[in-house]
């Protein structure tokens, strides 16, 4: 049954991807990309990767699509007919594809419990992590503790993206003007519903943030969801009112603080005599220490991701407004 679902999903995935090649309407391409992301999230669930599915749904289908749509609004939705030949790229793709298929020939059988990856490093995570770290969600344990350095790197990547977008677009505070900023100004229904929903979304984000130790979720997903709440607010009420709620400068500071919070946990554990990011040293009981460490670094991740995603959206949004006014 699971295999059947997998197959159907994969077939749909392939169709979506192929369709993307031939469509010239970029708007449709981006929409198909959203569908593609959702489909792959479903496959991830089927393959037991709930955390990944959650992230893919919120990031791939959510933030990426929104950003792409924002870009399309500025660049136009039609792709022009390509003039140069497509034989060379096709050749490269065929060679790469052939190499991949060649590579799969000696791949360990799918799903077999005796595969090398299930025998070598992972058993320790599965068997010991509940005892060593004390969290039921092993993904969180591995993410935040065993491979905490990766996650620090990941947070910094997000931060680097903020730097990149700011350097390219910059966020400028708009002067007060009477130009209607958003077509949604007159939507009373939307206003009411949005007012009702935004607190709920934020509440959900907080739940995801702090429940990540037990179920799927964690700082990254929570940050994205919280950012989504504010993006909704911005869409409905316009950029300048959103700036009044959380200003771009404040967000930049917040992004830095998130990274620093994460790193300071590491430095604190150094100070306590452990290695960098060794949470066991944070409290007298190592498991309690691990708990503290994970909660704080997840918070750091959440803050940074929230601030960065929202800043990037602001940057794209203010570009859109500038071009509207012109």
């Amino acid at each position, binding site marked *: 049954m699971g295999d059947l679902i997998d197959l159907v999903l*994969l077939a749909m995935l392939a169709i979506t991807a192929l369709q*993307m*090649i031939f469509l010239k309407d970029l708007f449709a*391409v981006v929409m198909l*990309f959203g569908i593609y992301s959702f489909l*792959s999230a479903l496959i*991830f669930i089927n*393959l*037991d*990767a*709930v*955390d*990944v599915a959650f992230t*893919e749904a919120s990031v*791939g289908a959510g933030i990426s699509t929104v*950003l*792409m749509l*924002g*870009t*399309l609004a*500025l*660049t136009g939705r039609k*792709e*022009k007919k*390509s*003039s140069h030949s497509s034989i060379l*790229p096709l050749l490269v*793709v*065929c060679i*790469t*594809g052939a190499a991949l298929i060649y590579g799969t020939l000696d791949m*360990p059988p*799918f*799903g*077999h*419990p005796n*595969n090398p*990856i299930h025998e070598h*490093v*992972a058993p320790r*995570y*599965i068997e010991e992590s*509940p005892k060593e770290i004390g969290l*039921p*969600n*092993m*993904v969180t*344990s*591995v993410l935040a503790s065993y491979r905490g350095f990766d996650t620090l790197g*990941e947070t910094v*990547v*997000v931060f*680097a*993206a903020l730097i990149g*977008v700011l350097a*390219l*677009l910059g966020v400028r505070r708009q002067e007060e003007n009477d130009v209607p900023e958003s077509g949604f100004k007159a939507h009373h229904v939307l206003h009411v519903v949005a007012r009702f929903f935004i607190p709920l979304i934020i509440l959900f984000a907080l739940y995801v943030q702090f429940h990540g130790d037990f179920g*799927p979720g964690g700082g990254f997903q929570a940050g994205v969801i919280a950012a989504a709440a504010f993006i909704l607010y911005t869409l409905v009420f316009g950029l300048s009112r959103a700036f009044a709620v959380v200003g771009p400068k404040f967000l930049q500071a917040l992004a830095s603080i998130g990274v620093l919070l994460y790193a300071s946990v590491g430095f604190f554990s150094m100070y306590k005599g452990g290695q960098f990011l060794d949470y066991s040293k944070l409290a007298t009981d190592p498991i309690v220490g691990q708990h503290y460490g994970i909660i704080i670094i997840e918070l750091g991740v959440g803050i940074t991701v929230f601030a960065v995603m929202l800043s990037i959206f602001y*940057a*794209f949004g203010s570009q859109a407004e500038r071009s509207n006014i012109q």
Partner: protein
Amino acid sequence: MMTGFYIVISANNLVKKIVGLNVFQTSVFMLYISMGKVNGGTAPILVEGVTTYSNPLPHVLILTAIVVGVATTSVGLALIIRIKRAYGTVEENEFENQDDAI
């Protein structure tokens, strides 16, 4: 599992290129996740009475990779907006014609 989706990369339009990159990366993610699956296992969240779990390590790696992917995407899109403003087009051959080739 991840057949030649990369054709998308050969696109002429920059936005489509970015979409293509994302599709490419997502299929790589699927490669990783598929190797973490254990037949008869469940999601790696501790539940009483379950002994086989899928491998959590690929999940962790891909969580990180997704984040990296979205970071690259956003910078790429920001670049596209600037290119549009500087050249008035986002078709690769058009702005190549505007500058003499290097």
